[in-house]
């Protein structure tokens, strides 16, 4: 049979069409809404991620304030317990999957190509797809609140059988929404890995990459490894609910504890997914404002990789009281404590970078320094929780709530804010209003500590988490926490104001907006033009 086309297809054959088809890249993008729907540009998609995450941060924040308003005093005042449970669940889900994770992905989209000298992400259309799955997923998730029987009410960890046998009908929609969000994360992570491994400027070795790029590379690996496990476990839930299987039901030979093992095999790496990019951000900002190169760059990379690998063998520290064999209790206790070593290396390196630096305290630096101090507090309470016999006392109390909010709010969220203040000049061409940013910082620091520090005490005194009412002896600590939460919540309006003002105007920023900043993104103009590094820059290693 005669072939319709020559069997080999030479590349030169269509060199002219190639040039012709490439030209539209440089045409003006479509205007209006369509531009944002169809874009393949990493900067536009990065902005979409960041805006989406900010909106979700406020929605999740409102849920948190409903919780704190109800807990302001003992007794039931504002909401009924069923709705309270939906609020704790939705607050967790939205903050983890719709606020923190997309914020980091947005920063990755904006900054990774700029920091490695790439023209765009490796797979630009897939990038757009990854983003637009998120609004779809979380519209579906939020809509469960309005369904008969209410939304998910079993906590963000959705333990079976609470989330299967005893769950509201909307749980199926919750599972499907989480599937969409998971697909988004996996595809986004694949794109980030391909970009970092394949798109670096000529001359840039792996060990030349800024730490934000390194930490994201490792985070993306974690995402690809554990998001499918989450997909697997929620699929089993879906089957148990709708098709009569017995995965998590002992009556049929299954085991509810199996759910917890699978969930936390995903869940523990998930917390590192939310903190490793934060480590990267802080490792970029602290050297800039200390005007010194990062102390111990290689050890930072190895520490990050060790944390990621260890994160796969510690998951059952969330399950000490579920009835594990003694050997498992011991193994997971010691492996968890081991993580303190690489984490300690990182804290040591940040502090040593500061040592004898000529430090200035602009808002990105303030947030980063607060990160180092407050994240360390969260790390230490984590060590306390890792001690299996002690955890029998702490488990499911407000001490746990204090612990993970210390690593996530003044940890992950502060790092995101530091990153926004740090890179806003590159994004908008204007410096953010420093006075406003400093107000935002100090109110946030006070609000965060007022909210979460008392929770250590109420938790140690025995107050259980996820309850709408509590014994009288916890009243004072709870009132403080609620006051702090409202202070923190409302001071975030200053953040929005600062960002909006910065987009609209402000002091003009040069290409190198910060004196001590030496990464590649500071070699392109501020604001960064829509297309950068179309011809790759030649990377020169900075000589100290």
């Amino acid at each position, binding site marked *: 049979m005669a*072939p*319709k*086309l020559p*069997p*080999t*297809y030479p590349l*030169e*054959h269509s060199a002219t*069409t*190639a040039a012709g088809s*490439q030209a539209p*890249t440089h045409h003006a*993008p*479509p205007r209006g809404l369509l531009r944002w729907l*169809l874009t*393949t540009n990493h900067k536009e998609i990065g902005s979409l991620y960041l805006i989406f995450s900010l909106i979700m941060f406020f929605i999740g924040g409102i849920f948190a304030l409903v919780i704190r308003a109800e807990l302001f005093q003992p007794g039931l005042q504002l909401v009924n317990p069923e709705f309270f449970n939906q609020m704790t669940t939705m607050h967790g889900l939205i903050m983890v999957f719709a606020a923190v994770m997309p914020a980091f992905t947005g920063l990755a989209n904006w900054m990774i190509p700029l920091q490695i*000298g*790439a*023209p*765009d992400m490796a*797979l630009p*259309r897939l990038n*757009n*797809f990854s983003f*637009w*799955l998120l609004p779809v*997923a979380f*519209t*579906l998730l939020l809509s469960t609140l309005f369904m008969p029987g209410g939304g998910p009410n079993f906590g963000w960890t959705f333990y079976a059988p609470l989330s299967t046998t005893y769950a509201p*009908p909307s749980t*199926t*929609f919750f599972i*499907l929404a989480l599937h969409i969000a998971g*697909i988004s994360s*996996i595809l986004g992570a694949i794109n980030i890995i*391909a970009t970092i*491994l*394949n*798109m670096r400027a000529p001359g840039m070795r792996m060990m030349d990459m800024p730490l934000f790029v390194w930490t994201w590379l490792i985070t993306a690996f974690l995402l*690809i*490894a*554990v998001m*499918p496990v989450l*997909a697997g476990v929620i699929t089993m839930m879906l089957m148990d609910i*709708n*098709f*009569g299987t*017995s*995965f998590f039901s*002992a*009556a*049929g*030979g*299954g*085991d509810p504890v*199996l759910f917890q093992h699978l969930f936390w*095999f995903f869940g523990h790496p998930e917390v590192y997914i939310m903190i490793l990019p934060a480590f990267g951000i802080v490792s970029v900002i602290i050297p800039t404002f200390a005007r010194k190169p990062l102390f111990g760059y290689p050890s930072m990379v190895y520490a990050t990789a060790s944390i990621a690998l260890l994160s796969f063998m510690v998951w059952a520290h969330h399950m000490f009281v579920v009835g594990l*064999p003694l050997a498992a209790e011991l193994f997971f206790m010691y492996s968890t404590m081991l993580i303190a070593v690489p984490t300690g290396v990182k804290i040591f390196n940040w502090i040593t970078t500061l040592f004898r630096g000529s430090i200035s305290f602009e808002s990105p630096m303030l947030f980063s320094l607060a990160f180092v101090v407050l994240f360390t507090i969260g790390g230490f309470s984590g060590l306390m929780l890792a001690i299996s016999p002690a955890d029998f006392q702490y488990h499911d109390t407000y001490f746990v709530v204090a612990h993970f909010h210390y690593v996530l709010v003044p940890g992950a969220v502060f790092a995101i804010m530091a990153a926004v203040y740090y890179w806003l000049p590159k994004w908008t061409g204007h410096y953010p209003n420093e006075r406003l940013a400093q107000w935002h910082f100090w109110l946030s620091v006070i609000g965060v500590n007022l909210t979460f520090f008392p929770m250590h005490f109420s938790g140690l005194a025995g107050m259980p988490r996820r309850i709408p009412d509590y014994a009288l002896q916890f009243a004072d600590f709870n009132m403080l926490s609620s006051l702090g939460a409202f202070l923190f919540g409302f001071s975030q309006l200053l953040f929005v104001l600062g960002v909006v003002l910065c987009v609209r105007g402000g002091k003009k920023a040069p290409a190198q907006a910060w004196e001590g900043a030496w990464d590649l993104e500071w070699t392109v103009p501020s604001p960064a033009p829509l297309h950068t590094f*179309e011809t*790759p820059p030649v990377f020169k290693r900075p000589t100290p």
Partner: protein
Amino acid sequence: MSGGTYYVPATSRWPILGSVALGIMMFGIGMQLVYDASSIIMLVGLVGILSVMGFWFRDVVRESRGGLYDTQMDRSFRWGMGWFIFSEAMFFAAFFGALFYIRTFAVPWLGGEGEKGISALLWPDFVPQWPLMNPPDEAVVGPRGIFSPWQLPLVNTLILVTSSITLTVAHEALKEGHRKICRNWLTGTVLLGLCFILIQGLEYYEAYAHYGITLEAGIFGATFFILTGFHGVHVIVGTIILTVMLVRVHQGHFAKENHFAFEAASWYWHFVDVVWIGLFIFVYVI
């Protein structure tokens, strides 16, 4: 390393349409499962996704044949496909992990073994065994019998292993520029894939009709169907991909040294084959 010719498509309507279609499909599945709504919404979403995939891949094929892709783009595709398969491996790992946990810990503990004797209080007469023919609670009816691994499952194993070999022969032929040989061996691979799907369908029929192995038949049925079911879906998808490759080989899309689509399809097929070997050993034999 960047070479300066990296192709960045201007805009594309397929991602946003694909997201919306996926949302419609998921909503439709939910409506059907929870409220017994008709499957129309789900089907609309499914058709939407399939058409978007068709158009999206058409664009990629056109760009590739238009010579817009350089070797760097080729590496991006390779990394992308490789990590995608890794994510699929982790998806199956979750189900294999569940199976191992159930067999090694959960079922013996239910029978009162080891330190977990307290589990035995609920169903004191329960005798642990695998395959679990006697779920602890009377409300759950266990399977009446199980398959011999040395009949249909063995046939299916031989079919898939053979198909991996025929696919490799087809690939080697393509690399040497023997398009006709490639086409023939690829046709054979697709036919073997179809045989596997048919036999698996037959086995499911047997499971329900004669052996009482159903989704409701306790943990054995659950682990059996989730592992073989998702594997079967992957074989179906793989067969579709290989069929598309067959059409493209027929149309002469692939060059001797430049045919990553074909390679990606074969990576995927080999991966599905490896998963089956695991299934055959741990679900059927042991």
